């Protein structure tokens, strides 16, 4: 059972606001999707384990310095920046 509280909690975890008036319909819609997901509970649990596709292991890089980007480039897409920092301005 998906409850309103569940939806509120996962919305908070997801950093999403759910307007009060949409909470019921969203809970309902989540319930439908979860019911659908619940069909896997009928599947027998097998001994198969899944690690990763292609069963890769030990893919490493060597500890060699690669030149970093300039801070100008790093900050190029920042909605706000100041003094070479990304900025979240909280003053009005």
């Amino acid at each position, binding site marked *: 059972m*998906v409850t309103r509280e*569940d*939806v509120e*909690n*996962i*919305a908070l*975890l*997801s*950093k*999403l*606001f759910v307007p009060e008036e949409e909470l019921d319909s*969203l809970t309902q*819609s*989540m319930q*439908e*999707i*979860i019911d*659908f*997901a*619940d*069909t*896997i*509970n009928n*599947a027998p*649990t*097998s001994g*198969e*384990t*899944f690690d*990763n*596709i*292609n069963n*890769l292991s030990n*893919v490493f*890089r060597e500890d060699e310095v690669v030149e970093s*980007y300039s801070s100008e*480039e*790093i900050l*190029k*897409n*920042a*909605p*706000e920046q100041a003094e070479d920092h*990304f900025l*979240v301005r*909280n003053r009005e």
Partner: protein
Amino acid sequence: MGTIAKIHEMLTTKQCSCTELTKSYLDEIQKSNGELNAYVNVTEEEALKTAETVDKKIASGEEIGLLEGVPMTLKDNLSTKGIETTCCSKILTGYKPIYNATVWDILASQNAVMLGKTNMDEFAMGSSCETSYFGGAANPFNTNHVSGGSSGGVASAVGANIAAYGLGSDTGGSIRQPASFCGIVGLKPTYGSVSRYGLIAYASSLDQIGPITKTVEDASIVFDAISEYDEKDSTSKGCMGGKTFSKLDNDIKGMKIGIAREYLDGVRDDVKEAVLNAAEVYRSLGAEIVYFDLPALKFALPVYYIIACAEASSNLGRYDGIRYGYKTEHYNGTHDMICRTRSEGFGEEVKRRILLGTYVLSAGYYDAYYKKAQNLRGTIVKAFNDAFKHCDVILAPTVPMTAFEMGHAVSDPVETYLTDICTVPVNIAGLPGVSVPCGFNAKGMPIGMQLIGKSFGEAEILNAAYKYQQAAGENFKDTKWGVKL
């Protein structure tokens, strides 16, 4: 048909210059994109610059590669340095990557002429292209119909001849399904054969980049070019199965083509008939058709949605208005800023999947959903391995239906998810799959069939697909759109 081979020939025999060719594509985009909405960003300047480079090369008598100077497009979730890359989401508006996706590095180094970035479902979440922030791309066969999704823009552009080919991404069918809807070819390669570096992630363990082309031959050419090992992607393996082009015309006499009965359940009659007709074509080519059961497929769809949404909820956490993209205007503190930015920046379907993914990973539900789904993923992988003991390739429908009318997809999420039922198993098992046109329904809408191969078995499925296309070429119809070559 403006295939790669044809364009290459035109350029090398100087029937037209690359600049002329590029301009004709750009003109056609200008004319038709208003109705098709395939492109979300046309990069005219860059395209003409590359065309000029190619022309200089040709003029100086240098040899050019197969993909050199061929006008193409990239799905808008492939990072292009300095060129806006939005995933067709409000939250990435204005974002210009400072690096290139590896696939684009490869193609750009071969002087591919990129005409622009194409439309897609927001963050590749959808099966109709309609969740795009910019509205859906239309089907070139009937613009009241969807192009399919999520790589709808690429399929629409290639289907309408306003790009010779394009690269899309396929997480649960996003290359094959729109290719099927638009009557063209779409290859989802084996997980690991094409680098994911620079592909904006939806579900990392399922995503794979691949070509959408007019013909199997073109798909093979593009796949061979982009399937390289990439040290930037830890899951990259490169072209383990070898290059495919030279094997396209191999004799398929004695090839065992398997049909899993489960793939035909719930499939529309016209689609089923077209796929079974294709089986007959194969029989006539000397292949052997074997029927078998694949009961594990029953759980593929919920397993897919659980894993995809779980990974998506994590992959999409980073859009917080701090480093790039959209940021809300009015807020009260950092937490409020992040929540508002995300709530305003993401569309409904994306939010729904983030919430679902968060739910299945959250304390108390992880075991029942995510862990169980991973376990079943193992079962499905094994089921395919077993199936390939009895056959060489699997033949199935790509989509249980043909392209539907616009506005009909988004109402009921679960119903919409069902359109992915034939495509998701391949992603779950990491296998290659190619969608090839195999006929039209009564309304003239294209039907696609899917050939599924063993891990790194691209050469085999492209071989089978090529042979079919040669034998049944009448399945191609040029639309009224685009460049006529």
